[in-house]
């Protein structure tokens, strides 16, 4: 258990993550209050990474549930190994034949087979998916529910139930209750609004693009071979580009990509030709590219 907000900040740093005071406070509270954290923010600002680092810093195992459109309870919680069950019934055909040998009517045979349900609906044939894995875990885990906004709202409702009591019932097997309450992190890129219920249950954290000071730290940390002056120029340029109101402004992940490619190209400073040539690392849409190229003078003013 973290002893203080400062400790969160330090341990995250050791795990190579620059945590703002705000983020550290929320993490501290999440552990203390045993509450899930919902992180919202644009893509590439370190939401997913934060969960991974949290696992590392608390020495917990990370279990990840990546959401996507069409994700349903089965794929998130557990599925019966349908094929395996069928295979077993095929292989055991004769045994089943023996079993119903002395029955005289169809209903009687069905009843007899139904009596053997247990054999086929046991843990042997159950394949636990991330949610059940997190609940069944013997050790302490961080459960990352990544990009929840991609799943359907119905899934959210179901997730909320699981997050409220950390127990699930498998009709054939009974109720399974968590040994340890997992530390849960949900992330959303805000593709749609999440339900009130889920938000109510969670501690909420908005992560936006970091202030220049923090972004510089991140770049130093993740691209240690970058010359200091270049790192500073990159940060300033990126912040100016973000101010251009692009369709998709560059995020931290793009700054890092850019910094890395500049290092590979052995750049010492940001000269316009080099910047133009590497701009696609930073900006993805054609329209945005044009926009930035048009404003390049302003973006690079007084940088070198």
């Amino acid at each position, binding site marked *: 258990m973290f002893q203080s907000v400062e400790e969160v900040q330090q341990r995250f740093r050791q795990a190579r993550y620059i945590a703002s005071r705000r983020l550290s406070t929320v993490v501290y509270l999440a552990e203390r209050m045993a509450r899930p954290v919902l992180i919202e923010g644009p893509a590439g600002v370190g939401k997913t990474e934060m969960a991974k680092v949290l696992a590392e810093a608390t020495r917990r195992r990370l279990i990840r549930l990546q959401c996507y459109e069409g994700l349903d309870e089965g794929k998130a919680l557990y599925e019966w190994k349908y094929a395996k069950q069928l295979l077993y019934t095929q292989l055991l055909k004769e045994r089943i034949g023996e079993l119903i040998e002395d029955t005289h009517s169809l209903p009687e045979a069905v009843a007899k087979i139904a009596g053997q349900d247990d054999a086929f609906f046991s843990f042997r044939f159950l394949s636990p998916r991330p949610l059940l894995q997190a609940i069944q875990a013997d050790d302490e885990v961080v459960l990352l529910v990544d990009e929840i906004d991609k799943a359907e709202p119905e899934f959210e409702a179901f997730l909320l139930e699981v997050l409220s009591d950390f127990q699930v019932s498998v009709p054939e097997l009974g109720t399974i209750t968590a040994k340890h309450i997992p530390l849960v992190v949900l992330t959303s890129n805000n593709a749609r609004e999440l339900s009130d219920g889920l938000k109510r249950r969670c501690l*909420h954290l908005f992560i936006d693009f970091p202030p220049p000071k923090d972004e510089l730290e991140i770049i130093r940390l993740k691209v240690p071979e970058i010359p200091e002056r270049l790192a500073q120029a990159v940060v300033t340029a990126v912040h100016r580009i973000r101010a251009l109101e692009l369709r998709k402004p560059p995020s931290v992940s793009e700054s890092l990509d850019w910094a890395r490619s500049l290092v590979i190209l052995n750049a010492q400073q940001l000269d316009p030709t080099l910047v133009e040539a590497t701009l696609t690392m930073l900006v993805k849409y054609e329209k945005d590219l044009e926009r930035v190229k048009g404003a390049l003078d302003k973006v690079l003013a007084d940088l070198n």
Partner: protein
Amino acid sequence: MDQRILEFIGDLRRAEIRISPSEALDALAASAEVGLRDRETFKTALATTLIKEFRDLPTFDRLFDLYFLDLQALGEGLKKALGPEDPRIRDLLDRLMAEEGIEIDPLTELLLWGQGTEMELAIRRGGEHVGLERLMYFLQIGYFSRRIHDRFDWEAIERDLARLMQLLEARGLDPGRLARIRNYLDLRLEAFRRLIRQHVERELERRAFRQGEKLTREVLTDKPLFALTAEEVAQMKAVVARLARKIKDALALRQRQEEKGRLDSRRTVRKSLQYGGIPMELRFRRRHRDKPKLITICDVSDSVRNASRFMLQLVWSLQECFSRVRSYVFVSEIAEVTQAFNTYPVDKAIEWALRAAPVDYHCRSDFGYAFSRFCRTELESLDRKTTILVLGDARNNYNDPQAWAVTHMRERVKGIIWLNPEGQWGWGIGDSVMPLYAPHCDVVRECRTIGQLAQVVDNLVHHWWRRGR
């Protein structure tokens, strides 16, 4: 402090931030976890438990400052706010009272030993029965400060203090020390009075805040669109964005539900042949229902510009719910602006449509001409999946209404919906030709305020596009 946080939450709620009882409890628990030592940490503890929408953060920030501005003073920095708090003097007084067995008034005790928080609470209690709810103007601050002030028994305090001083004197303290002690007590008294005034000042600010919030939110949604000032328009954009989001989620959810497949037995059986007739893999039928198409035709003449602005904003935000959205604007000449909507961000696209589209913005509205032009060039592209949404006041400046054009359009599409930003009482009066167009429309609604616009669009989404058409 809990009391204070609950009041704070009360004001957040009044500012229309939804906070459930469980969230309020979370806020109390979280603030207890982090304590008051660091203001930013305390603030985060409240924000993370109470605020779940990005757009509510500015309100939270403003209110937080009104409530917890003096947190520092109440916690660690107490000494500064209360003047020099000499521990030696306190010790001396402590001992004196213990030895002489003096009983003093609880208020004196508070004054001598109380922490800022306790003083604040006492002041709050003192303020409960002085009619603070009537506090409305800056000029009343003095009056209410005095009223709260008068609720404390200052004579008793003075008596207690005088007695303490006498006792100290009798013990032969030198005059210099005595003067310092007296000075210390006076400073504490003074600080207490200052706290009273601060309390009233903040109360006034809080009230002003509540009023302001309420006014903007309630009045603006019912204010006629044409009467909104530029600043109000800016404020309402956020409201409309919120609305659009809600409608979009509802619509998207329904579209997905409708698509959900059922077991496709034919394909399942066919697939099972691979496994000797055992249905190893199940196949589902995906129902494909085409999303509806939408065409908007907006009057962008001066009188209805705001209405068009908000409708365009709504339509822009709902684009994904339609397989195709085409937008047109007109005053007299009509022009397609779809392209701009696909390229620019929403604000810019709308400004462009309202000012820079290839139509003459300064001529007089001519619905008839616009519709006839539309018919001539676009009729072929209409089909039964398309809904036409018209926004305009149908004030035709006595031009030829050419209602036949609307008839033609109606024959080819799923339906025509007309939103009129003018009050219904005016339809048909003067140069309004609404009654001539109305019979060809499937729905005609008054849309004078944001409130009405919201309701109409919500209704359309839930009923018009629902009937499987």
